[in-house]
């Protein structure tokens, strides 16, 4: 409909500005509506296997994610115990706290009353056979033997109402096997220097604000109790757990991202001002950066539905890289006011540099590790839009008389330096060869294979958690049976089907025990079956009569038993809501997770604590014993195995993707440069930089992880710009080489500032990237200079 309008230059300028402004507006809108997260989600695979899905569910919303470990230390045990008691009293009233355990037997009597009243529904011993004359006689004889034991006088009152021993059987089954040390009636660490509390929050693991509030309430309660108690001034509160991790890492990432962005902005602005001596240039130079950052966030938000805090943390690096384009433009533009020189000679090089970086980052976007994929997309969108703004918008925004400081004198000095540096060519090549040899020889020790290396959680926080967990004497749960079913009752039935096999494993000493939700709450079907198995009054009386022959117990004495059985025959079955007030409900909740589509039940397997099988579970034996019971809905999960295999998968994939990215870069350069020799010349300094940075890290005792690898790939992507400039310098003769050299140095300084600052981060992932790319960028520039061939212009003067 519209006639094509011939593009005049000014029309084109306005069109570019219009598109840019519209783009900025749209990006800002997207960013405005973006969800920012800082939880474990960045570490989860985008296309998880069923095992990984379960792992992810547990990490995010499992009951384990609701548990906070609290320690109080720094005072006399008696004072600490008292603090624990008072704090518990205060916090048990708090609606944000579901459960608090600190070793006190609070609620124990209520639990016992509940168990006792429902014992004929809960006890696995209840079958029709149990109430025949023979069954009754066997059970009552066992109860009499129980009376003969050392604790007989403590349990004797049960006999008249529970002569078949259901209550003791239940307690035995439900009581935890071991726990932390008890001191003054409270849980303590083994050496008694710390009292311990276990708190289950009402907020789920992914409700971070509520987790944060709960943690604040705990701190407030401690402060209040401490103040009210003389002699407790020196006591300290320690809190750990997934909720603390989530909140701490969110806060750390948030504050680090803010702090680092701020510092690097200030540093880079200072640097730029020192170069430009012009506020206008400073302001204009930030336009590509801001555009890039907005576009990057918007792209990630659109691509992933949310932006992870870590991705923002890397935003600082973009400042360092995107500002380079403006530097090239400004420095060149000062020499040639019409900008034609920049367009003709530098834009192709910058474009190639951007494309090279994009190749590197594009490989990352394919990663199954969401954190990396986001980083890749963010960088691509950011760099491309920053370059486009530099090319199409920025030149026309520069005032007619735009001038920055003349950097030619500096450039000339740099040129002389390059001449001197070239003498080191052979030494560098030899050093690189040595580095290759070192890396080859130490291949096995290069990589860190622990998932923790990727954690956004500060190291000190991780250490505290390990400490408190060992204090709790709570062995890490490693092996789980995960059952999935459409609803709670189906999940409980699935769980019950596994009990006989699990009991056999316990009897065989393969397991110390297991925690199963169907032990705390049998399915309604099972409860109903038990109820049906209870005899009517006449039958029971008759069976009891013959069972008691020759025993020192009379039917009259057991009248309360007869009454209880009669009542149990018609009592309502136990619903999940009925046990929510019991202290063991935390164990029940921990093992039942309700999601929108299904219920998953967990059975924790505990390794034997002694004997030949101590501390290990023979997983093949367990698998064999469970045999046909395992299927897609019933999965035996090795948490440690699953998470470490996940990490291996990431690492392998990242290695592969890096190789692909590298190959893409080579291909791109080959297509553009059309000369094997030139591609080699561009690549040699990059290889040297990567090899020597990796060797340096290794010699410094750093075990590289996935993020170091990404850092090396970034080094190649960033460094390729420098190498390409040296390459074109060679091709084009050396007229403007002083300015180019100077702008390369400035670009390098800003990049090193942006990435280098990450090295000082407290967040392990950011630090890994920083310590790799910071030195890597310097090395890439330096080596590009060292390995550059003398240009035609100055070849005659070269030594």
């Amino acid at each position: 409909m519209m006639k094509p309008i011939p593009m005049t230059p000014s029309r084109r300028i306005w069109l570019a500005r219009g598109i840019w402004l519209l783009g900025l507006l749209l990006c800002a809108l997207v960013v405005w509506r973006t969800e920012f997260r800082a939880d474990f989600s960045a570490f989860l695979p985008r296309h998880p296997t069923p095992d990984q899905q379960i792992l992810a569910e547990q990490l995010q919303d499992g009951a384990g994610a609701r548990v906070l470990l609290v320690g109080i230390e720094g005072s006399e045990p008696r004072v600490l115990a008292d603090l624990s008691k008072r704090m518990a009293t205060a916090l048990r009233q708090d609606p944000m706290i579901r459960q608090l355990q600190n070793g006190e037997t609070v609620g124990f009597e209520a639990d016992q009353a509940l168990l006792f009243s429902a014992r004929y529904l809960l006890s696995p011993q209840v079958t029709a056979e149990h109430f025949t004359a023979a069954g009754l006689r066997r059970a009552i004889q066992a109860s009499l033997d129980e009376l003969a034991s050392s604790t007989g006088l403590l349990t004797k009152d049960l006999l008249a109402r529970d002569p078949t021993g259901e209550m003791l059987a239940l307690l035995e089954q439900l009581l935890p096997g071991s726990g932390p040390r008890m001191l003054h009636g409270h849980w303590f660490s083994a050496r008694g220097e710390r009292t311990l509390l276990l708190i289950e929050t009402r907020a789920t693991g992914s409700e971070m604000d509520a987790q944060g509030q709960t943690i604040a309430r705990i701190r407030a309660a401690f402060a209040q109790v401490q103040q009210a108690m003389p002699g407790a001034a020196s006591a300290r509160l320690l809190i750990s757990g997934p909720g603390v991790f989530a909140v701490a890492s969110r806060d750390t990432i948030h504050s680090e991202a803010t702090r680092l962005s701020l510092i690097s902005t200030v540093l880079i602005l200072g640097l730029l001002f020192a170069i430009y001596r012009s506020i206008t240039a400073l302001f204009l130079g930030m336009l590509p950066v801001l555009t890039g950052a907005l576009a990057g966030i918007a792209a990630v938000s659109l691509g992933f539905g949310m932006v992870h805090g870590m991705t923002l943390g890397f935003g600082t690096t973009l400042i360092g890289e995107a500002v380079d384009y403006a530097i090239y433009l400004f420095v060149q533009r000062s020499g040639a006011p019409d900008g034609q020189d920049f367009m003709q000679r530098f834009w192709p090089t910058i474009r190639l540099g951007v494309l090279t970086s994009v190749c590197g980052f594009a490989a990352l976007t394919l990663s199954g590790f969401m954190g990396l994929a986001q980083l890749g997309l963010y960088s691509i969108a950011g760099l491309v839009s920053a370059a486009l703004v530099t090319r199409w918008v920025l030149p026309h925004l520069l005032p007619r008389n735009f001038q920055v400081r003349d950097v030619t004198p500096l450039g000339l000095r740099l040129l002389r330096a390059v001449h001197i540096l070239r003498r080191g060519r052979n030494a560098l090549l030899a050093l690189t060869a040595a580095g290759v040899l070192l890396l080859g020889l130490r291949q096995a020790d290069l990589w860190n294979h622990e998932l923790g290396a990727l954690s956004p959680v500060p190291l000190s926080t991780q250490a505290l958690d390990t400490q408190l967990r060992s204090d709790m004497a709570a062995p890490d749960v490693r092996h789980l049976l995960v059952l999935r079913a459409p609803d709670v009752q189906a999940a409980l039935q699935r769980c019950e089907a596994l009990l006989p096999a699990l009991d056999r494993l316990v009897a065989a000493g393969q397991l110390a025990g297991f925690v199963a939700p169907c032990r705390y709450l049998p399915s309604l079907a099972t409860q109903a079956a038990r109820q049906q198995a209870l005899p009517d009054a006449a039958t029971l009386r008759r069976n009891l009569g013959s069972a008691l022959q020759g025993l020192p117990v009379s039917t009259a004495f057991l009248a309360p038993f007869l009454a209880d059985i009669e009542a149990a025959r018609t009592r309502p079955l136990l619903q999940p809501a009925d046990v929510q007030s019991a202290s063991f409900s935390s164990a029940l909740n921990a093992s039942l997770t309700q999601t929108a589509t299904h219920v998953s039940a967990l059975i924790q397997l505990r390794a034997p604590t002694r004997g030949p099988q101590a501390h290990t579970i023979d997983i093949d034996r367990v698998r064999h014993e469970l045999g046909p019971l395992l299927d897609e809905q019933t999965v035996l999960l090795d948490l440690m195995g699953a998470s470490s295999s996940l990490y291996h998968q990431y690492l392998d994939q990242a290695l592969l993707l890096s190789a692909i990215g590298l190959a893409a870069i080579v291909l791109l350069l080959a297509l553009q440069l059309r000369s094997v020799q030139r591609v080699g010349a561009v690549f040699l300094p990059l290889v040297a930089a990567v090899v020597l940075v990796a060797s340096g890290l290794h010699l410094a005792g750093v075990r590289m992880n996935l993020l170091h690898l990404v850092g090396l790939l970034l080094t190649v992507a960033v460094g390729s710009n420098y190498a390409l400039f040296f390459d074109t310098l060679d091709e084009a003769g050396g007229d403007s080489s002083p300015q180019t050299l100077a702008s390369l140095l400035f670009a390098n300084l800003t990049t090193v500032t942006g990435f280098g600052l990450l090295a000082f981060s407290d967040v392990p992932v950011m630090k890994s990237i920083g310590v790799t790319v910071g030195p890597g960028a310097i090395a890439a520039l330096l080596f590009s200079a060292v390995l550059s061939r003398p240009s035609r212009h100055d070849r005659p003067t070269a030594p």
Partner: protein
Amino acid sequence: MRLTKRALWLLTALAWCGLARAQPAFDLDSLLARMSVQTRVATTFTEKKFIKGLDAPIESSGELGFEAPSRMIKRTLLPRPETLKLDDRTVTMERGRQVRTLSLDDYPELAVHIEGIRACMAGDRAALEQFYRVELSGSPTQWKMTLIPLNEKAAEQVQVIHLAGEQADIRKVQVLLTDGDSSIMTISRPLSR
């Protein structure tokens, strides 16, 4: 005559005094001191629990041992094997495969039954008096000790414990519960070492 009679009285009195002085003093310290001399004691026991409503007492038997400074082991063999070990403040109960460890301080209702015997055998007066009000009567050869629990929780269940002994050996432990039930444990002389 009057004089002789008076002299006779005096003599008798003196004789009694001398006799009394000649006999070693008998009090809690001296009894505990003698008990603590034995660093290893191995005995057997039989126990009868009298529980109302039951037509016959519940019987059990086994071995009772002590090792200085503070370990007591009660190994029940009949009717069902079970080991109860008290080591300092820790109680370990083993029954078949099942092992349960708990702190004596957390279970005063259990501690009241066993701490008295252990404290006596260890000669630990402080431990004894921390848990019970102690009364001693009789002679070094035939003595009786009454232990009344001080802990509130323990006192709710146990009214009094009577120990009876000969020389440095405990021979009988009777526990009277507040509800009228009771138990009597008869302990053999220490087995020859």
